[in-house]
Every structure is written in C-alpha cells, then in structure tokens.
C-alpha cells in the first residue's frame, strides 16, 4: 500500500458512543493524526481516552450500543468496510501497546509464537521471516538473550521485560499507527522512564504515528507534538504541545498542567485542578446532554 503524502494516518470524525442507559461516553470527538506524528490524549480518569483508542481498534466494549461518526485510516473509511474486512484492515495498519503488561500476554503460551503468530497468520509472512523479525525487535528493545526469551513463558519474565516484549510485538509488523494506552502506568517508576524512552526512540526510527493515552502532562511534554484534552467524552482543546504548555486556551487544561508535579521545581506546591472548575464543566456537560436528548426526541 502506498501512502499519498497528503493523506492523514488517522482521522476521527464526529465520533459518538453511548451506553444502553443513555450515558454518552464520547461526544462528537474529532481528531487527526499526520504520518509520523505523536498525539497525546489527556484527561482525567473516565474522560473517554481509552474509549477512543478502542473505537479506532474496533474493540469497543459490547455494552456500547450506539456509536456514530466515522474513522478513517489512511483515507479508508472504516464504516464503509464489512466487519471481516474492517478487522483485517485495522490489524494490518495498526497495533496496540496495552496498559498492563502482566495481563496482556497469554499465560499458557510461549513468548515467541505470541509475537510471530500475527505476522504469519494475519500478515502472511513466512515463519522464518517472522522469527527473524521477532528476534531483531527483541534485541532492539534491549532484551538480552532473545533466543531464550522467545522460549519462555510470561510468568518467567518481569513486568518491564513483558512491556518491552509487547512493544516489540506492536512494532514488529511495521504498523502505520500505534495506540499506546497508558503504557507505563502499571510499571515501577524507574522502569517507566526507560519504557517511555524506548517508545519514543522506536517511534522516531520507524516514523509510526502514535496515539498516546496518558494523564501525565510530564509525559505529554516529552513525547507528543499534538495534544487533545478530553473531559467527559468531549474534546475541550486540541493544539500543538508547545501551545498547550505556553498558553492553553481552556482553564481546565491550565489546571491539568499546574497539577503536574515537576521534578526540577519541587519548591512549587502541588495544585490539583480546582474543584469549582470541574463542577462547572460537569454542569456544562449535563446542559449539553439535555439539549442532545431533547433534540433527538423531536
């Protein structure tokens, strides 16, 4: 597949997701990702960051009843595809680095096949090529003794090792887009930095676009060029990272930045996002819901 230079790697248009009880998880979310770009998705817990990633990858929870809007991968509308084609299209173009490396590997299968299986069965590579690629990437993510590791079971490896393996597996088929859903939160603080560094290096080397879910503004500053700020499933702000840090337009974003403890400015007191601001946003959201439902009933 050849990429047109003007084509966006990912385009989300007016995405909505709703639960059976009417709760709206995503509200008209739109965002784009240029080739090789890293976009951070930030917002408090429950804002819908993971939900966006899941929508892109086609793994929304079965409870999500209604979703509208469209997602385009390199200009290809996913709505236009039949489920089977959609699944293989998404799988061939994108990958996921999951949040918890301890639960993301199958405990009864060896590491090797867990990396090579998709390469052979979905991407139709030869076994030799897949194995070579797996070893090469394991080495790249600084795993000593890759030959031994591919014959190991997950429980024999540390959390940091497993996350490196999952990163290797994600990059192995050279995807255009990687969704990284808080890939460091489940790890020790010391390991977090290394993993983040690794993702950034690999992203630069391969030019893969990354949708990086996090609630840590410190991480945002290190890794991303663009930022999308979410609140209650709504995009509050979408701007280049620099602009966000220098003069965020939305007070909630400024609150988020202020709430991030900076290691080199320990004297600065920790200030959480002000409660009255959050309350105000919640009222706005409810008012919007009212308009949404009344509009829908007409």
């Amino acid at each position, binding site marked *: 597949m050849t990429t047109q230079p003007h084509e966006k790697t990912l385009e989300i248009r007016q995405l909505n997701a709703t639960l059976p009880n009417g709760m709206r998880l995503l509200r008209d979310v739109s965002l784009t990702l240029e080739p090789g770009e890293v976009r951070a998705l930030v917002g408090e817990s429950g804002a819908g960051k993971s939900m966006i990633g899941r929508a892109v990858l086609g*793994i929304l929870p079965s409870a999500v009843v209604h979703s509208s809007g469209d997602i385009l991968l390199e200009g290809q509308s996913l709505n236009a595809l039949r489920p089977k084609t959609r699944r293989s299209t*998404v799988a061939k173009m994108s990958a996921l680095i999951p949040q918890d490396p301890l639960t*993301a590997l*199958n*405990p009864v299968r060896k590491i090797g096949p867990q990396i090579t299986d*998709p390469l052979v069965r979905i991407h139709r590579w030869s076994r030799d090529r897949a194995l070579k690629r797996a070893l090469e990437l394991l080495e790249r993510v600084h795993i000593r003794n890759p030959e031994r590791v591919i014959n190991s079971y997950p429980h024999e490896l540390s959390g940091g090792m497993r996350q490196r393996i999952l990163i290797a597996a994600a990059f192995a088929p050279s995807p255009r887009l990687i969704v990284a859903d808080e890939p460091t939160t489940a790890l020790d603080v010391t390991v977090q930095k290394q993993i983040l560094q690794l993702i950034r290096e690999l992203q630069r080397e391969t030019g893969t676009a990354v949708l990086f879910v996090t609630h840590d503004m410190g991480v945002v500053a290190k890794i991303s060029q663009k930022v999308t700020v979410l609140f209650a499933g709504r995009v509050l702000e979408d701007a280049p990272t620099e602009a966000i840090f220098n003069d965020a337009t939305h007070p909630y974003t400024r609150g988020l930045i202020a709430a991030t403890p900076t290691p080199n400015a320990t004297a600065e007191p920790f200030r959480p996002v002000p409660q009255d601001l959050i309350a105000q946003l919640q009222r706005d959201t409810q008012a919007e819901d009212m308009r949404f439902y009344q509009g829908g009933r007409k």
Partner: protein
Amino acid sequence: MLLKNVLVRLITTAITLFGVAVVVFVLVRVAPGNPIAMMLPPGATSEDIANLSALYGFDKSIFEQFVIWLGGVLRGDFGTSITLRQPVAELVLGRLPATLELSTMALFIALGLGGTVAVIGARKRDTATEVGLDLTSGAVLSIPDFLWGLIFVLLFGVLWPILSISGRIDPRIEFDFTTNFYIFEGLIRGRFDVVMSTLSHMLMPAMSLALPLAAMIAQLLKQNLKEVLNQDYTTLARVRGFSETSVILREALRNAALPTLALVGVQFTFLIGGTVIVERLFAFEGLGNMAIDAVINRDLPLIQGIVLLFAALFTVINLLVDLSYTLLNPRLRHG
C-alpha cells in the same frame, strides 16, 4: 522436589487402598446374607453349611480372615470366586478392559460434545443461541445416566431398532484375541469388523454415561471461556486481527480448560461408578455388571476384588488429571 511428590503420592495411595480394603472387607461380612447358604441346594443341613464355611475360612474371626486375605493379596492372590470358582484376579482383570473401553469412549464423547457446545456458546455469547444451549444442557444434566440408558433402549432398541441393545459384540463374529481390549487389539490386528461391532454395541451405553458429563462440561467450560474472553490477552489477539473463533480456540481454550479439568476428573470417577447400572442395563460384559452379580450372590472375594480395582482405578485417574493439569499449565511445570 518432584521425587518427594511422587513418594507422598504413592504412600497416600497405599493408605487409601488399604482403608478401602478394610472397610469393604468388614462391610460385606457384617451385611446380612450368607454366601455359603446361597451356594447350597435348599435341603442342606447346617452341618453342610458349617463344613463349607470352614473350607472358605469363614469360620475364623474377621480379623484373622483379613490377615489371611491380605497375605494373599501381597502375593498377588486375591482369592477365588465362590460362585464362579475361578481366581478373582483373573476374573476381574478379564472384565476390566470392557469397562475401560466403555468409560474411555464415554469420556471422549463427553469432552467432544461438551467442548463443542461450550465453544459455540462462548462464540454466540449474549445471544438467544447461548440461552438455548444453556437451557438444553440444563435439561440434559437433570436426567441421570441410567435414565438416559432406558430412553435410548426405548428409542433405538424398541421404537426404531437400529442399534443392538445388549452385549459387547455380535456373538457371530469369530476372533481369538490375547487381550479383552476388543477395540484396541482389533485396531492393531486390523480386525475392523470386531472394532465396528464393539463400537456399535458401546454407542448407547457410552452415550448414556456421557450425556450428563457433556452437559456439565458444556456449562462450566463456557463460563470459563467467557471469563477468559474478557482478559487483556484475548483483546490484544482481536486487535491483531484474529477472528473471534480463532481467539477462542487459540488463546482462550487452554486457559479455560484448566479450571474445567479438575471437575472433569472428579466427574469421570462418578461416570465410572455409573457403569455399574448402565452395563447391567445393556447386558454389557464389564466389571460393573459382574459387580452386581457378585453382590446378589454374596460372592465376598469377588466383591472385594472388584471394589479394590475400582478404587485403584480412581487413584490412577486422579493421578492422570494432576499430570495433565501440570502439562497444560506452564506455571506449575516450571515450579
């Protein structure tokens, strides 16, 4: 470590079997009914009975009898059947293959049927299909094995007689096998007529034994599959492009099988217990059928031999279950 496990296992097995032997030995002797009186013609005098009792050693105390019997067992002599007048070991081992083949076939049917239904149920989870399968397996489970036997006899023996309802093999087939494993030896020797006839005779009793277990496996395995299908690694497999069916078969099945296996082991021993009545129902010449005759005739040495063999069989099955558990679970394999 491993050696210690094996040793502990052997010792507990020996203790269990000894306990079973003691209990059975005492129970059959305090239970009403005198085997000797049943052997003799109605006109026999009490003197005749006393003489014959002394011949079989029944005049001694239970403790003495047990010591004598245990001494024999340690030398490989399990006594002589009172009614059949043959060594118990020979009789029992002659029947064991029939029961083993029957219960193995039942186990395979239960695993195949229950496994398939579980996979379909998990694949169609949260749909009407799943509810339908749940209701069906619930209904199947509520009917015990011997009732299934009666239903099958009625359906395929009487109303629509397509299967033979008695015996283990067509008596017109001539063959001379060294073992009583008709299917196993038939396959090795290429006597497919023997194999086919045995299989068709086994089908109904095996199905009767298998259905309740199949229903149980269907329910439990499906539940375990559904849990595993919420795990992150199955989600990751979907992201990687695998279809739901291949996620179930490749990623979920082995993980879901682990908790199912423990139950299957226990239930399989119940299934073997069920052979006693089911074999009787189908006049299948196995151990269970022989056990009923032995009890009716108060053939004490034979009863003891059969019960001990069943107990040994259960121990072996538990051992095999533990072994396969270790094989399926890498976390146990590597300590």
